[in-house]
Structures are given as C-alpha cells and as structure tokens.
C-alpha cells in the first residue's frame, strides 16, 4: 500500500472480519444445529454453541438417514454424488481434450460447423430445455441410472475452448519435431500434448467436480428411485418432510456432509481452483 496508516489498517481488518463472519455465519449455524438433539429445536430458538450430539447425528444420518421421509442413508447419497461428479468431470475433460485436439491440429471439412455446434451448448443450459431433454433421456431408457445422471451433462464448450486456446500456445516446433521423429497424431497427443496440459486439466478438474457435485435440477428430474438420489437433491426431500416434523439436527448434518467435499476441494486446491475459474470464464 502507498501510505501506512495504522487506523486505516485497523478499519480494513474490521471490515474483513465482519465480511468473513457474515460469509461463515450460515454454515456455522448449520454445524451447530447438527450437534444438538431434537429437543433443542422444540424449545423455539436454536442455541449458538455446539451441543453434545454430533456423533449420534452424523452416524444416524450416514447409515440410516431419514428413511421415513423416503430418503436413503446419506452415505449412499454421498457415494452417488461422488460417482456422478467423477463421471461428469472425467467425461467432460476427455471429450473436450479430444475435440480441441481435432479442431487445432487438423484441417477438415465442416470444421467451423462442428465448432459452432459445440459453441451452441453454452447457450442452452439444462434449465431452458428441461422437458424435451427429459423426454430424450426417457426414450433412451436412461432414467434412474448413472449414465442418465452424467452423460447428458458432459458436453462442455468452455473446456473445449480452454484447451483449444492452450493448444494454440504450444510451440509449432513441438509438432514439427514429433512429425520428423515419425510420431502419429495419437502418439503426439498422448506423449506431448497431454503432459503439457496437465495443470490445465487439474484446474478444470476442480471446477467441474464442483459443477457435477452440485447438480440439482437434473438428478431431481430423472431419479425416482432412491437408490440413485444424490445428496444435494436428497436434502430437499428431507426438508419438505422435516418442516412438519422437526428433524433439523439430522437435516443439518446432511447439509454439512453435502457441502464438505466441494468446499474441501476448493480449500486444498485453491491455486488450481482460481486458475480454472478465471481461465474458463474469460
């Protein structure tokens, strides 16, 4: 900073601490709520300090869940979310790497046409074509399956553009050298391009994992079988039941479990997360 004024710094710290406190507050309340027994909620207001029932609530939620509300155990929903998020992430990365490779390293007819087809996906979020997309998935008999949960979401224009941009910066000499040595396109892709893209892949991995994990509308539409519920959408079913019947301590335990994996990914991979975020959006 240009000048150093102690009171200004103090003021800045105050603003930031208030800001952080406001940002943390809802999650703090959820964590506190998940550590109390059901009795605390009947009394009217929620205590602001943790209670003694954390282990009971989390184990109950993990292994049995709110089966009365038609929700499977959280452990299983977390697993479903994980499978779905990983399938979406790996799927998006692979098909985007391949298509960016084709677009940058080959000249072929209808290249622009294919590029535009991919580009258009940016403009068609699931939310604006829900019913026909649902019908297509139903016709393909993909309701209540991991394939139905993940495949329709793995087309990715942003990842394709990002890889395309990155491939354009790879020096031309790499390709020349590879061709002089007699490497074919697939060998070049595997032995040179992939290793060079590893940071980009990792950065996008973080963003896409969060995207996949946080899906809500799509699993809500295509899963009617509790075996395929994901945790994020499963929570809504618990809250509708909880509203009449206060099981907030259990619901909040599920909320914390649903939020934890993506938050941990962001915290541990912060550098990659920021890189992935700022580069995909620009």
């Amino acid at each position, binding site marked *: 900073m240009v000048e150093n004024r102690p009171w*200004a710094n103090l003021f800045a710290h105050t603003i930031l601490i208030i800001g952080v406190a406001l940002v943390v507050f809802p999650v703090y309340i959820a964590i506190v709520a998940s550590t109390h027994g059901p009795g605390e909620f009947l009394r009217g207001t929620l205590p602001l300090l943790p209670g003694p029932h954390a282990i009971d609530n989390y184990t109950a939620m993990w292994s049995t869940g709110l089966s009365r509300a038609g929700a499977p155990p959280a452990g299983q929903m977390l697993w479903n979310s994980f499978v779905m998020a990983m399938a979406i992430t790996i799927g998006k990365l692979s098909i985007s790497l391949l298509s960016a490779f084709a677009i940058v390293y080959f000249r072929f007819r209808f290249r622009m046409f294919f590029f535009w087809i991919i580009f258009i996906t940016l403009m068609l979020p699931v939310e604006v074509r829900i*019913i*026909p997309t649902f019908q297509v998935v139903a016709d393909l008999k993909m309701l209540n399956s991991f394939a139905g949960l993940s495949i329709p979401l793995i087309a990715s224009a942003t990842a394709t553009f990002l890889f395309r941009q990155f491939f354009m910066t790879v020096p031309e000499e790499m390709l020349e050298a590879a061709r002089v040595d007699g490497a074919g396109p697939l060998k070049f892709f595997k032995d040179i391009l992939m290793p060079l893209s590893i940071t980009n892949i990792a950065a996008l991995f973080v963003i896409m994992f969060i995207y996949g994990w946080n899906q809500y509308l799509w699993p809500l539409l295509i899963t009617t079988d509790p075996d395929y519920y994901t945790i994020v959408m499963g929570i809504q079913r618990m809250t509708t039941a909880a509203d009449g019947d206060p099981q907030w301590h259990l619901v909040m335990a599920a909320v914390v479990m649903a939020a934890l994996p993506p938050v941990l990914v962001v915290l541990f991979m912060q550098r990659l997360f920021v890189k992935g975020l700022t580069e995909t959006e620009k």
Partner: protein
Amino acid sequence: MQTKRMTFPGRWLPYALLAPQVIITLIFFIWPAGKAMYQSLLREDAFGLRSTFVGLENFARLFRDGAYLNSLSVTVVFAVGTTLISMSVALLLASTVNRMIRSRSTYTTLLVWPYAIAPAIAGVLWWFIFNPSIGIVPYLLEMVGYNWNHRTSGNDAMLLVILAAAWKQISYNFLFFLAGMQSIPQSLIEAAAIDGASPMKRFWTIVFPLLSPTTFFLMVVNVVYAMFDTFGIIHATTQGGPSQATNILVYKVYADGFIGLNLGSSAAQSVILMIIVILLTVVQFRFIERRVNY
C-alpha cells in the same frame, strides 16, 4: 478460425475425435432445443393424446397472462437484487483485501469457499436461519418489532432468496474483482497518492474506472447466474411462493411443464429463455473479444 500452420493429415481421424462431443451435443442439446421450439407451436391436451398446431398462439397467450408477466417482473427484481448485493459486497471486500499485504491470502481463503456450495444447499442454509419458528434471524427481528414470515409475506420470501443467491455468488465476484485490481499498475496509484489524493478519491477516480470491464463482465455473469442457476434455491426454499412472489422464469418453466403439464406453454417459455440466454452470451463474448484486443 486458425489452426496450426502445420497440421496432421487425416481423413477420418478428426471426425472420430470430435464424435463423442458432437454426438452428445446433438442428442442432448440441439435435438431437445429443436423439440422445445416445435412444441412451443403446439397445444396439447392434458393427457398428451392430441396436439394441434397453434402457431405463435402460446407466445401470445403468455404475454396476456398476468402470471407470466408477474414472473417476468419477479425475475427482474430477483436478478437485480442478487447482482447488486453480491457485487457491492464483493467489491468492498476485494478492495479491502487488496490493500493487505501479509494477510491477503488468509482472507482470500476465508472468502472463496462458498463458491463450492450448491445453490440448493445455500437456499436450505438461509431458509433455516430465517425459519419463522426456530430461525435465529426472525427471533432477532422480533425484538425490533418485525414479524418475519416468508411463508406468508412475498417481500420476506423475495429477500430470503436474494440473500441466499447473493451469498453464494460473493466469492466468485470477489475473486474477479481482486484479480482485476491486481492488474492495475501500482505506479498509477502511487502517483495519485503523491499528488495527495485520498484513498477514497483514488478508488473512485482510478481503481473503479479501470475495473469497469471486470464490472461489466461480472454484471452479465451474475444476471445469467440469477436467472438460470438459482433453480435449486427457489425449489428448496419457497417453491415460487407465497402466491407467486418468487416464481422466477426458470422455476415457472419447470412448474408449468412438470407439475402443471402444460407442455405448449412451458415450451414457449423455454424458447423465450433461450433467446434471453443467447443474447446474454453474445453480449458476454462480444465484450470479451473486445477486451482481448486492448
């Protein structure tokens, strides 16, 4: 569009490489979008047995329909509220963090994680805090004489969903504002400081104008977010109520199509949303291309 000067020869390989992406796009994006456009021109009876071609009648009906017009204005209020709150809080936090040297990364870490929380989860969290019977905020509000109830008051419900949506988006805006501020040359700010400009004046006359590309970009992104990515917030909290007060367009498409089974109207609404999202994407890209040339 460019390729490398030197490319691989290949007749079938490039098509094979593109195939997975293109096939998924065609089956799950282009085909359903086309179908939505076609359905928007039909009127189906409630059992889906017969459908008749009605042209643009579905669209005409929408714009005569009070519920749809209400949903439009609700969406505008929601998008503007969410964007304003999340951007101004993020700007305040980013400009404060930016003056920190040693604690910058600690504060950044503490502020970025809400990005990772699903909108639906954010909705449930705020819903819990504002729960009229056990929530902590209604309890405090009651002390100052305000009787909070988002189950009956449309304004309370709107405020609730705006807060949940804005809360989640602060971290995103914060990161972009911070990146924008860090790319402003320090010498400009030092020169202004030597000329005696106060921190406030420096912010409003130098930093803020230089941030305007970032601000504009974030505005578009936030409007897209509020319009299209907040389905989970609405569905998990107010479900569009009370009496349509939070029934944003995206939620109405779902409610009319899946619950009301009014396919023609829902498809027409989808087409209108597609047009909006296409316009917003074009604006975003135009602007980004321009910025690349700077």
